[in-house]
């Protein structure tokens, strides 16, 4: 077990290095550097002086030296300066990270809360009208682009019905810590979360339904029935125990989906999170922030995939042999 975890974690290291190299090269391909950014439109700094500063900060060094410096700085928590916000990138991220984590966490939770019961119902009562309805929902949710769905939700529930706020993460008038503040936070979360979660249920429902239909007629389930185990217990104790846990193995892909989705969702609901920061920064050509965000998101997915592999190996020992 420990051996597997160690081996799996070791695989992560080359992946992270590869990611950092790709991101580093993308960053150097972006027009402008820290110096042009910092002294943009500053008449007191001549191009010669800029060149001197570049020399001083080592921006004319060969790429591997620059790369090494960039990595060691990043590992110490220094991700550079944002020249549009005139702030260290880490400070900029801190405020928004909690917003995005909240949105992503709740979305994932709601996804499972919707998908798991629906998957179980569809699998257990295969070909019933409920199953047919769920399968149709699954087709539709798979085909619907998230940005179109989110816009329609915003249009119907915020603009037409006026049930929810049209954007932001919290009412600016609400005072931090009060009851109203939390209510306002929840209200601001409902639409973004539902827009994401209702479309992310696809793989979980699909997997659960198929797996339950497969397991339903296996020998150990027949044995349980033959022993006289009530039908409900056959499902909760015998079938689900086998079918539910592998869902954890989708976690890595769910995180990729959440990161992509957050860019759309946060833009549409003007939710102040990392996705919105990413888009704004790239529009303002604030590449220090962009680089940091791409690196963080990539690392999050790599770590997420590793975690889901480890969870899966705990649940299903057969995987460890590989």
């Amino acid at each position, binding site marked *: 077990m420990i051996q597997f975890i160690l081996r799996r974690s070791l695989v992560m290291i080359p*992946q992270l290095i*590869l*990611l950092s190299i790709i991101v580093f090269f*993308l960053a150097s*391909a*972006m*027009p402008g550097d820290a110096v042009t950014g910092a002294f943009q439109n500053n008449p007191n700094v001549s191009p010669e002086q800029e060149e001197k500063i570049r020399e001083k900060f080592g921006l004319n060094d060969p790429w591997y030296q620059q790369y090494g410096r960039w990595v060691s700085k990043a590992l110490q928590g220094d991700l550079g300066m944002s020249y549009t916000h005139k702030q260290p990138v880490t400070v900029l991220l801190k405020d928004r990270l909690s917003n995005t984590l909240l949105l992503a966490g709740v979305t994932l939770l709601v996804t499972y809360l919707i998908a798991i019961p629906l998957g179980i119902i569809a699998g257990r009562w295969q070909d019933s009208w409920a199953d047919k309805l769920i399968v149709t929902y699954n*087709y*539709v949710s*798979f*085909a*619907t*682009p*998230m*940005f*179109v769905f989110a*816009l*329609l939700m*915003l*249009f119907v529930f915020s*603009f037409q019905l006026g049930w929810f706020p*049209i954007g932001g993460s919290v009412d600016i008038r609400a005072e931090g810590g009060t009851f109203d503040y939390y209510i306002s936070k929840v209200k601001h979360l409902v639409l973004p979360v539902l827009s994401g979660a209702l479309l992310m249920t696809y793989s979980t429902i699909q997997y659960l339904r198929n797996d339950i239909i497969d397991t339903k007629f296996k020998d150990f389930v027949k044995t349980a029935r033959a022993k006289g185990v009530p039908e409900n217990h056959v499902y909760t104790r015998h079938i689900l125990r086998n079918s539910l846990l592998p869902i954890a193995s989708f976690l*890595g*892909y769910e995180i*990729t989906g959440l*990161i*992509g989705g957050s*860019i*759309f969702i946060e*833009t*549409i609901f003007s939710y102040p999170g990392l996705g919105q920061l*990413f*888009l704004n920064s*790239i*529009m303002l*050509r604030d590449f220090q922030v*962009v680089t940091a*965000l*791409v690196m963080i*998101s*990539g690392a999050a*997915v*790599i770590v997420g*995939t590793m975690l889901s592999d480890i969870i899966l190996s705990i649940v299903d020992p057969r995987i460890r042999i590989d």
Partner: protein
Amino acid sequence: MKELEQQLLEEKRELMAREKKNNPSFLKVVWREIKSDKVAFISFILLIIILMTAYISPLFIDEASVKRVDPFNIYNSPSADNWLGTDDGGRDVFGQLMLGARNSFTIGIAVTLLAAIYGLTVGLIAGYYGGIVDNIIMRIIDFLMVLPSLMFIIVFVVIVPNYSVASFIFIMSLFSWFGKARLIRSKGLAERELDYINASKTLGTPDWKIMLFEMFPNLSSLVIVNMTLTLAGNIGLETGLTFLGFGLPTGTPSLGTLIALAKNPDVISTKWWVWLPAALLILVMMLSINYVGQAVKRASDARQRLA
């Protein structure tokens, strides 16, 4: 003697004809499958109508006049002149909708084709050679698959010099072949163990010929199924990127261009004719393609067929 020969030949011909009837071509099976599924059939007809309108109507629409800015007719509501009103530049929404649908679909097809070529090449090589080649390729694909591709596409769109429709198609296809390669590789690994491949190898047929002319035809139905299913996803991604402002360059309308106007709260709340038709058109197109795709998928697997 001659009569007997004639008779035998006749019988052989008949046998071949029957064989042909019993083993209809893949397209025929697909068509039978679509006809037997009501939803897929309606989707298919709907899709044909949408595509015919989108590809034929631009022949009658004057592109220049659709794109011309008319400051005196901004956000007109639908009328006899402008069936779906006008947008923020006084341009006809209906004309843009048709041009957008055509562009979005064409780009979706182009990306799907390009991605299929990359996926096929990499997948066939990994599947055919197996062993260490396969191992290295799969490690790389595993890594690429978890990358936040949306972010990477956006970054590429920004840093590519001389950005154009062609470079956009190239960037998008660069990030959408991983799943395909993996699928083809797993089928290819099973295929390479079969006798006909071994026979060809023994005869000394070059590897690329075996891959291209022997392995590939046996995987083609798999590729077609996967392409129809990813086509919808690619159209969704293109319109989504254009919606965010990182898709088609300005001047090339996409369905996403019209929907992007809904980012303005005034437009989304009071000027439905600008963005809602495009949003609904995308929805209908994606659903139709997916339903047809599901029928194609069932047709490729005899156990799942309805017909």
